[in-house]
């Protein structure tokens, strides 16, 4: 499937079907789909999958900041040069998205990363454990949120490091 065909099928799927979406073409090879209803998300993904529209290339989390009070989750599907992006908005406190693992097995690490970096709860995730962060990472601390301060965690830990009985704080 080439890029143009893929984009065409994708826009047919998301625009002229029963779901409520807003689409945009920010760049010639990209189709940006804003989902207004969380319920539409899984059916659309299944639709993309059935149409064999690319593979899930990445999941990006975005923190729109405490002022907006929302997080955005982006799912990028790639076919040839085409990139179809599904955007979900979730509230900043208590965010949650459904897991894609049952449809797309390779979503697992991406969703785990989303969980620990943004604190987005992934509903029904098979392995909701840390992927990158250490196990002793403080709870409710999400490094990629805008209000996470670089250095707070690291200095706290560094004080704790001891060697040869000497305190070692750089």
């Amino acid at each position: 499937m080439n890029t143009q065909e893929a984009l065409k099928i994708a826009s047919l799927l998301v625009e002229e079907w029963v779901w409520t979406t807003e689409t945009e073409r920010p760049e010639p090879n990209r189709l940006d789909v804003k989902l207004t209803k969380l319920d539409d998300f899984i059916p659309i993904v299944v639709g993309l999958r059935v149409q064999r529209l690319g593979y899930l290339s990445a999941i990006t989390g975005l923190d729109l900041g405490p002022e907006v009070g929302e997080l955005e989750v982006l799912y990028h599907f790639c076919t040839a040069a085409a990139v179809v992006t599904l955007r979900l908005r979730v509230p900043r406190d208590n965010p949650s998205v459904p897991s894609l693992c049952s449809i797309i097995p390779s979503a697992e690490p991406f969703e785990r990363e989303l969980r620990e970096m943004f604190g987005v709860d992934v509903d029904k995730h098979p392995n909701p454990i840390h992927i990158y962060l250490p196990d002793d990472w403080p709870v409710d601390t999400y490094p990629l949120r805008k209000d996470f301060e670089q250095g707070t965690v690291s200095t706290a830990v560094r004080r704790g490091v001891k060697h040869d009985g000497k305190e070692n704080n750089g």
Partner: protein
Amino acid sequence: MMEKKIMDETFTVPIGPQHPALKEPSHFRITVDGEIVTNAVVRLGYAHRGIEKAVEGRNWIQNLYMLERICGICSHIHATAYCLGVEQLAGVEVPPRAQAIRVLTAELERIHSHFLWVGVAAHEAGFDTLFMYIWRDRETVMDLLETLSGNRVNYSVNILGGVKFDINEEQADAIRKGLDYLEERTNHYLDVVSNDAMFLQRTSGIGVMTRNQAEVLGTVGPTARASNVARDVRVEAPYGAYFDYPANIVLEERGDLTARFVVRIKELFESYRLIRLILDTLPSGDLETRMPRRIKEGETVCRVEAPRGELFYFIKSNGTDMPERIKIRTPTICNMTSVVKLVIGHQLADVPMILVGIDPCFSCNDRMVILDRSDGYKQQWTWEALRQHGIDYYHEQHS
């Protein structure tokens, strides 16, 4: 063996912390029901440095160098992906000469990376002579990269808006000469990995992944291409100078470890061809365009083909001199998933083969297995013990 009695309940087998290894450390936790793997989870982060957060606090220029240092093996491709993305956002045209030099460096990097991998994999399989010779010849590329860029590993060829270094005739000749030598050697190595009986018995038919599996599991790069999945960003979605210098895709059908060796080695020939072509038809012109320090607001997605597969960048700018968000998805994580998913439903005894099959360096990361049962009974297993278990298991099956 003594493991027998433990085998009949469900328990979790976390394979391996990391090992002072060349490759990055990782760690698997495998849940087993009797003999069948029911779940496997990969745990990364021994090399997690918090880059995605750090980029938000540094300016666009500083970030170039930090992103370049995500990984020392394919540093240039990270920097290229970032530059292409930022230039796209800023709406800046990069001169064709600079684009060509970027691609040339990327292909040199691919050569170094594939040589490195073949060498390490050979060492892993216990064939040190191949490792030594491959790494000896790899020095040829390293020298070329060093004379070209001034550093052997993190070349820093890119700057936003272009490249730092030019190539003169003398350097071009040195590259051509180096490639001639490497091409001859590569032919020889292709012969070794595809025909040496002793080596084949460690690679042939091992870690097989079918085409469908590779496709569904979202594998990328040579791992996918060794299973006949035509996924190569250079071909599917050309970027930079790949429009003018199209690459050909290299596919293998068998999907086993041998195929992964062969794909990588055959890709080298493709790189040699591209580099020669670029050297012969290097467009003239400037090396850089001026970049604004502040980048226009916007978002972009940038995909490039790293030596290990598709590298994905998502860049969002808020109009200041620092990025709002950069998301990096490296190829390794995609292929990692395929391992984790592939083992489910297989015998525990097959796990090592599948892991080793995907990327032999896993076996060097993971040397220890800790049996952690619910009653608090802990036991350490080596990677090898697991392998041994596999061997014993099949011996019993057959006798």
